[in-house]
């Protein structure tokens, strides 16, 4: 009896039991809440797409309405723009084809969701590309848990704006300071004290751009790659 009590199982049975019960509880919570969370994330993506493709100035003070695949933007000056966002079959977490007006309208650009490990946890990004995928139009951080006051600076617009307008013909690199970043048009200046987070963001952008380019060049069945 005392042998059983002193064995690993005898010592750890409560922890094993709790782990099983809590694991089942978390699985049930996940099953119940994940559709709602995904819905919230999709609404956030739809709200951010106009800013990513049209530029931050075009949506500053604008009212954005989402109705299914349609996003309507009414600027502060009263000008209205309508976009159609259609998700494409992709190996990326999500890839959206964005056109002006209806789905037959002019192709405005592409927005892809990419993710990889950051310093603390997974970083999830939205990467905006022009219709011909030759330029990055902007990035948006969907999810991150980087170090507060250091790595979490990747969400700030002054860091993100470095990505807008960079050509996609060469992968992005990270410059540790302004001097290093100025040496190449493809270099992004790292956040002070958060080189790992900055590098992770650049890697996610590089991987996502490469994937989108490949998928547009060799479209899978059902993929709308019209220029």
């Amino acid at each position, binding site marked *: 009896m005392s042998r059983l009590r002193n064995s690993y199982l005898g*010592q*750890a049975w*409560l*922890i094993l039991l*709790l*782990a099983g019960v*809590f694991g089942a*509880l*978390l699985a049930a*919570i*996940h099953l119940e*809440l994940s559709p*709602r*969370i995904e819905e*919230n994330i999709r609404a*956030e993506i739809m709200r951010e797409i106009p800013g990513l493709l049209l530029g931050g100035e075009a949506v500053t003070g604008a009212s954005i309405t989402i109705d299914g695949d349609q996003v309507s933007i009414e600027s502060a000056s009263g000008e209205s723009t309508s976009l159609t966002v259609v998700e494409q079959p992709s190996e990326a977490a999500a890839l959206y084809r964005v056109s002006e007006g209806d789905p037959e309208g002019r192709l405005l650009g592409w927005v892809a969701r990419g993710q990889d490990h950051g310093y*603390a*946890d997974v970083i999830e990004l939205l990467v905006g590309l022009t219709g011909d995928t030759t330029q990055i139009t902007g990035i948006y951080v969907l999810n*991150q*848990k*980087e170090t*507060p*006051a250091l790595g*979490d600076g990747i969400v700030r617009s002054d860091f993100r704006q470095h990505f807008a307008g960079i050509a996609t013909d060469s992968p992005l690199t990270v410059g540790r300071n302004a001097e290093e970043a100025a040496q190449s048009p493809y270099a992004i200046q790292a956040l002070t004290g958060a080189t790992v987070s900055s590098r992770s963001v650049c890697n996610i952008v590089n991987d996502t751009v490469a994937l989108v380019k490949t998928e547009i060049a060799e479209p899978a069945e059902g993929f709308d790659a019209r220029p």
Partner: protein
Amino acid sequence: MPVHEPTPLERFLNGILPENPVYRQLLGLCPTLAVTAAMKPAMTMVGATAFVLICANLITSLIRHLLKPHLRILVFTLTIATFVTIADRTLAAFAYPMSKLLGPYVPLIIVNCMIISRCEVCSSKQGPKAALADAIGVSLGFLLALASVATVREILGNGSWFGIQLVPESFPTLILMILPPGAFLALGSLLGLATWLGQRRKARVSASEAGSA
């Protein structure tokens, strides 16, 4: 000699002021500094922390006779992490903008010493009634602390309270107060005030005791 365990009422009252987690024990300072730029995120953090504390205290209290001394911290952490994950996912589902605003600070409740200390000090030793009273009392103490810091910061830094504009917008505000240094200034000043009031009260009690003797 048997050790006197505080009654549920004593546990409840102690948690609010005499053993206030922030002003008396200096615990839970990370959220106190990080999410108190405004009342809304501060109160959401209090709600999430209170939920985790109440659930963790109750579970720990119910299984207290099964705990092995050398494995107790593991059980506390496992329990706390489970309820923090539930709080985090619930916020992401029903209060998504607030969940985004609080960012990593909700998952960081797992390492909030205030919760693990209540499991260690109270719920692993006393029954569910005392554990529940303790959790509610400490949560109210935490609410008092975060509300006081957030009130000072939001009014001075933004001229508003709970998003309601109190000071006319033409009045100058101290932007510094809603920035990180403002958290240290507000907490430091309030801690100083709380300590000064405590010492004054103690001195008054000693003087009256000496007078009656």
